[in-house]
């Protein structure tokens, strides 16, 4: 089994972010006990027992020159050289980590080598700490807990508010050339999304789509309906009219193409941007038109970021 069973390249994003964000210096033990090359193995054995650690770094000033581990002590007891000095029996061929490395390095080191601890050096090659797999797992547990708490809180908020809206269907009747009330339906939709805590840039897209569709009904149709349907993930807006139909749907989808009269244009409408605008702000878009009427359906995903993660 791996020492730390976390995959360092295809774990969930939250975990990957954590193991790259946390640095070795954030998790290592810094108040460690050290010995010198002249300390006897007997003394080291007593330190190991007293400090409840399984390996002791041997230093010369701030420089690391070796490690004496519990295994080395057992060997010494077995072979009878326990009274001899560290310098003659310590492990000199050391694998070290740097304090600025992300802990993903440490995790793969524990996986690759059979050591239970690694000395940590700073950029001046001075010994600044020791790291064990236990240091990593306990810090990770704390951090993972914090992340999950945050995720749950975010999820809860989004679901609560969307759940509250979910299943709501609002139908607005739109009359031909009723400029007086034009924009009412769109304003209502905008308010509904705002009170559900939807992100401003999503609300803006919904407002653009609903307003353009609403104005199309006012300007071009013989009257119709704007229907807003809410699901937890999506707002679907349907604009339905009873005629006269669009003669050339493909042209109507082209920016700048318009059949609006001079009067309509003088009001600032009929620029031929309506349907292209709706399509560009929507996540889903469909249009169907016959002489009996036109139906446009567009949808906007309410929590796009959540879907990605």
């Amino acid at each position: 089994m791996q020492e730390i069973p976390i995959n360092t390249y295809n774990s969930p994003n939250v975990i990957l972010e954590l193991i790259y964000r946390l640095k070795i210096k954030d998790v290592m033990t810094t108040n460690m006990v050290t010995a010198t090359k002249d300390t006897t193995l007997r003394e080291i054995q007593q330190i190991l027992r007293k400090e409840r650690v399984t390996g002791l770094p041997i230093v010369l000033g701030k420089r690391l020159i070796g490690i004496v581990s519990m295994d080395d002590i057992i060997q010494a007891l077995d072979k009878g050289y326990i009274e001899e000095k560290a310098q003659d029996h310590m492990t000199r061929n050391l694998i070290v980590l740097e304090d600025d490395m992300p802990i993903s390095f440490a995790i793969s080191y524990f996986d690759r080598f059979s050591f239970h601890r690694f000395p940590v050096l700073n950029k001046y090659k001075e010994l600044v700490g020791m790291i064990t797999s236990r240091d990593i797992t306990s810090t990770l547990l704390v951090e993972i807990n914090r992340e999950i708490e945050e995720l749950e809180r975010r999820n809860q908020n989004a679901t609560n508010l969307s759940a509250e809206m979910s299943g709501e269907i609002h139908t607005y009747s739109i009359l031909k050339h009723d400029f007086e009330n034009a924009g009412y339906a769109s304003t209502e939709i905008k308010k509904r999304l705002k009170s559900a805590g939807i992100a401003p840039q999503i609300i803006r897209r919904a407002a653009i789509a609903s307003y353009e569709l609403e104005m199309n009904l006012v300007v071009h149709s013989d009257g119709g309906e704007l229907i807003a349907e809410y699901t937890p993930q999506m707002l679907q807006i349907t604009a339905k009219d009873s005629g006269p139909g669009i003669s050339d749907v493909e042209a109507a989808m082209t920016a700048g193409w318009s059949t609006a009269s001079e009067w309509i244009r003088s009001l600032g409408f009929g620029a031929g941007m309506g349907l292209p605008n709706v399509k560009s702000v929507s996540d889903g878009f469909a249009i169907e038109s016959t002489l009996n009427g036109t139906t446009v359906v567009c949808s906007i995903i309410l929590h796009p970021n959540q879907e990605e993660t």
Partner: protein
Amino acid sequence: MTISDLATLEGFKWATEKTQDWEIQDAYTGDLLSDVMGNAPSDSVLVTIQAHKNTIAVASLAGIHALVICNNRSVPDDMKEAAQEEEIAIFTTKDTQFQASCKIAKALGRLDENRN
């Protein structure tokens, strides 16, 4: 700048009652409401000649806090009422859209932004 800073610009006259003193961060000039709807930044002032009620609906949806109606066009009463309801300030001016935009750009400190 804020709405009350707009009110101090030369030749700008209140057409509505004073509104809340919104912070204005940006501006947009245009008469095509679809274009304004799609492109105007929020927390902005709109420079236009479209003096009718539908402009208020667009402004409200796009997050525009103030309108400057140019070329001395008069503001109909139903537009003023709608603006009052939506807390949107309307100013009128004799200026063209270009002249009004220049004054606002200066007040926003944006005149130099294309110089590098």
